[in-house]
């Protein structure tokens, strides 16, 4: 055998296990680049309507889909091999644990659903750029990196990879003012928060002497905490708080969610939030475990503010995307409660809720997306959603299901998720927080019901929405519906999986 080849094989044998944790991200990147490349060479496109004009990319969307599906398969493989997976990987820059794998799965599921919904959307709204898919995949890769990060640098890189992609996606419909305005706001505030995040990293680095999460934990576990460290923690809270939209760092999100193209909004509401929370929880649950007494009060206050403001502000929204933006702020508050519980139960609840939240939010946005028409997204609850139950009974029923799930009514995933978070809060003695959570859920019921009311109990006063559900979107919606119900009615193994995933997170290398 050719010694060179043999050398390569040896190298491969060494490298392959090292690549194992980043395999899904690598697959995404690969396919993302492929999607871009085929388009650059004008492969896989329909012919434009006129000479010199571009047609619709055909290949790119499917490449993206296949890539995501493959990545999801890789995550499955990771999950199966979790126990034998060694480490550390990349000198500890990347960790492979149940927590990360679970959330990778959630992120990729969100991405997959986004893609399924996007294809029809792009066709309807004449978005013919393959970059769109490329950006989604790259952002998703960033998310995966964040989820598996074992080092603040990795987190930062993943964060930026994700954020930059999403900034662009937000402003993707650049001919529409709102899209651009959203992008502007997201970008300015995002960059601003990146500054704080970086500075926080710097301070923590200064206090701990390393970026490695495990290393930091060892370094800071000896009290008392220095002011530099505390300031660093504070700024990290700000940075993460911005990404997951905690009050008062949330103000971008309604505008951005409203302005961005609906599939991007869905992607943001699920993927970005998942990745942000993944890193947030990992850093605070493991790295800053010893500082819990310091960060819990602050997060407590943020959770209260987030739940109250998110829910209260949502009740007067008429634009469904904006309403869902506030709703997602509120849900960030709930998720924060799981973190505040500061326990395995809390983390498991967080994982479960993240999955449930992704499914139901994705589902809700899915309906929003398919109800759009060429040139308009039809997002007014009062006007566009009135009476659609009798015109699109299945869509309305699904929407109602998602709304009830977001409210937390059994037998849906949202209920079990809320149950899990409440359990965690009560178990850790945060009963007031639990009570506030349920009281704000009651407020949330009001605005979720508003959608149902409009769909079922109001007569439409506009010309009927002509909407056909693309097959891909139908699949996505079906997945969401089955998922929301499945996680609600048979939550057993999912709860089990979330619980099992937690064991690994505390055993961080």
């Amino acid at each position, binding site marked *: 055998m050719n010694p060179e080849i043999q050398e390569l094989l040896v190298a491969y044998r060494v490298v392959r296990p090292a690549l194992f944790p980043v395999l899904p991200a690598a697959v995404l990147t690969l396919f993302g680049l492929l999607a871009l490349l085929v388009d650059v060479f004008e492969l896989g496109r329909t012919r434009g309507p006129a000479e010199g004009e571009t047609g619709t990319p055909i290949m790119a969307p499917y490449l993206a889909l296949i890539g995501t599906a493959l990545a999801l398969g890789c995550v499955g493989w990771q999950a199966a091999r979790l126990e034998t997976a060694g480490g550390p990987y990349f000198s500890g820059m990347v960790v492979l644990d149940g927590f990360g794998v679970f959330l990778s799965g959630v992120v990729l599921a969100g991405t997959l659903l986004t893609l399924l919904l996007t294809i029809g959307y792009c066709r309807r709204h004449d978005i013919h750029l393959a970059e769109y898919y490329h950006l989604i995949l790259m952002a998703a890769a960033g998310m995966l990196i964040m989820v598996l990060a074992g080092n603040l640098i990795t987190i930062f890189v993943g964060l930026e990879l994700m954020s930059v992609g999403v900034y662009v996606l937000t402003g993707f419909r650049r001919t529409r003012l709102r899209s651009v305005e959203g992008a502007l706001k997201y970008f300015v505030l995002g960059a601003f928060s990146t500054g704080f995040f970086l500075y926080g990293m710097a301070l923590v680095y200064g206090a701990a002497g390393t970026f490695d999460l495990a290393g930091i934990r060892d370094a800071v576990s000896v009290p008392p905490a220095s002011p530099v460290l*505390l300031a660093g923690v504070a700024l990290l809270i700000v940075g993460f708080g911005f990404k997951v939209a905690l009050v008062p760092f949330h103000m971008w999100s309604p505008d951005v969610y409203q302005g961005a193209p609906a599939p991007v909004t869905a992607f943001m509401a699920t993927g970005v939030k998942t990745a942000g929370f993944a890193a947030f929880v990992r850093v605070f649950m493991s790295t800053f475990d010893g500082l819990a007494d310091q960060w819990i009060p602050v997060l407590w206050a943020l959770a209260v503010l987030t739940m*109250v403001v998110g829910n209260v502000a949502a009740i007067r929204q008429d634009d469904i995307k904006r309403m869902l933006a506030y709703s997602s702020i509120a849900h960030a508050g709930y998720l924060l409660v799981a973190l505040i519980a500061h326990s395995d139960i809390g983390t498991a609840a967080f994982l479960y809720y993240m999955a449930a939240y992704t499914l139901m939010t994705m589902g809700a946005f899915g309906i929003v997306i398919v109800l759009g028409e060429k040139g308009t997204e039809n997002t007014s609850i009062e006007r566009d959603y009135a009476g659609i139950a009798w015109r699109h009974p299945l869509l309305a029923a699904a929407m109602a299901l998602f709304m009830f799930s977001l409210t937390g009514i059994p037998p849906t995933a949202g209920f079990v998720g809320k149950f899990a978070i409440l359990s965690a809060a009560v178990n850790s003695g945060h009963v007031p927080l639990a009570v506030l959570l349920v009281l704000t859920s009651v407020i949330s019921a009001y605005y979720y019901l508003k959608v149902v009311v409009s769909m079922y109990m109001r007569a439409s006063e506009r010309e009927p929405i002509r909407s056909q559900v693309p097959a891909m979107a139908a699949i996505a919606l079906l997945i969401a519906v089955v998922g929301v119900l499945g996680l609600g009615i048979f939550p057993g193994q999912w709860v089990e999986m979330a619980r099992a995933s937690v064991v690994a997170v505390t055993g961080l290398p």
Partner: protein
Amino acid sequence: MAANWIWLVPALPLAGVLVNGLLGRRIGKGGVSVIGPGMVGAAFAVSLWLFLDLAARAPEARTLSQNVYTWISAGDFRASVAFLVDPLSATLMLVVTGVGFLIHVYSVGYMHDEDRRGFARYFTYLNLFTFAMLVLVMADNFLLLFVGWEGVGLCSYLLIGFWFKDRANATAGKKAFIVNRIGDFGFLLGIFLMFGAFGSVAFADVLPSAATVLDAGGPLAFWICLFLFVGAVGKSAQIPLYVWLPDAMAGPTPVSALIHAATMVTAGVYMVARSHALYDMAPAVLAIVAGIGAATALYAATIGLVQTDIKKVLAYSTISQLGYMFLGVGVAAYAAGIFHLVTHAFFKALLFLGAGSVIHALHGEQDMRRMGGLKRALPVTYWTMLAATLAIAGIPPLAGFFSKDEILWRTWDAGHPVLWAIGLATAGLTALYMFRLFFLTFHGSFRGTGEQRQHLHESPPSMTIPLTVLGALSVVGGWIGIPPAIGQTLGGVPNAIESWLAPVFADAHAEGAAHAAGEAHAIPPMEYALMAASIAVALLGILAARYLWLTRPELPVRIGLQFRVAATVLSNKYYVDELYDAIVVRPYNALSHFAWRVIDEGLIDGLVVGGTGAVVRWQSRVSSAWQSGAIPTYVTVFFGGVVAILVYYLFG
């Protein structure tokens, strides 16, 4: 065994209810006319058989009972559908079925003009009433008694409002039901207390052990008896709950005769007599009973004096006579009370039926000012009415004399001269207003319209036969209770009713038992004196009536003008209805309105629920205001958050 057939007595009228109610329209008026009275007649026959069966036994063995089934059993509480036939209930059964049968027969004629549906409905109700009344008097426990008690109330409600197209009739029925419910409220509390004390509501458990469980004169006995009496006050139309009875005259006249004179309204008397073992432990309540009885007797009599509606006069007369009965039981002369109940059933039923006959003849006219001189046109009615009027006035040897006199004597004997005096005065007034009615109706000249005069006619036999039978009973009915004072002079005629009822009342009232057994003992001369006094007063009343309304008919008008205030007060029934309206009904309605508009809609829904919503919405507006859309605001808020957290960590 007779005891096995007791159930038949209430079951027969119940069968009548089912047949008339479900098939009434199919079997037609003829069928209903047979079934309705027939079932009650059959019940009468069975009652009579049971009565004879009882009579054939030794006095202390005169109890038959039958447990049909256990009705309610929950925890410690147990109540059965079980019937008790003893001398007391047997007496009442005979009255109810006997008088009831006559009135059913009478009704066939009286209600002839009703359509098929109405006719069937009428007899359904009337049979239902008979059933309920029988349950009431035959019950062997207080709860079943209460079932009958409310059942008769229901029938009363239905029958008063029988002609419901006129809203006033329906209103009268409703009033009757609700006022009765106030009494029932007391009755229920009495049962609750009793169950607490005795652990049972069966007569067999409660009554014999009353003396051992209750302290004589103790609070428990007092409250039990008082609450039960509240029930009696409602049902028997005593002060202060009598107001429904005059209005109840809105019902068909036979109904007034049966329910509002002969049977239902006397249920209170029956109940007090039945639970005398309890009352004997509560002398204070007995005094209240007697006091209210006497007061009601006099009070109602004064109102009766000025009423112009023939049925209203009779209604007030009924209230007054019921007062007598309560006076009787109140002085522990239970047998005397029941005796008056029986005789009153005869003559008052007759008076109502007679009045009904008059009204029938005048096509619904009830105002005595437009009657007069009917003696010739309605001979049967006239003579039977005369018997009844004499009976109620207390003229010997008619029925009313013996029973009323017995009560008066026993009142005196029990040491209540004031109550006796009231009773005596009432007797005089009774004679006065009853003969006023009699003279105004049958004597003098006819004051109605010419058309009415042309159509004057005596009632059909279905109506006159009951009148005659009741007339006879009004005459001889009193002879079952001839007091020893007379009986001994007549050669040892026993006081049949007293000795008949003795087994029931004996245990608690030894003296009465001895008395009833007809043992010869010294008759105080006072008894004769009092007897004479009451006869004299009655005669005086009759003469006065004759003078005032026959000889000098303009005189009452002059007197009315002379004492205008008194007359107005009397003819407006002392303004009691208005008083109740002002102090109970209106405030209650106003309060209800307040509860609805102010508490419910204003306070709870408006302030608390709406307020919460308003606060949330206000908060929402505040949040929105912050969300100005401008990046600088966002950055500022963001920065504020950063500063707050840093300040907390570095300086907090």
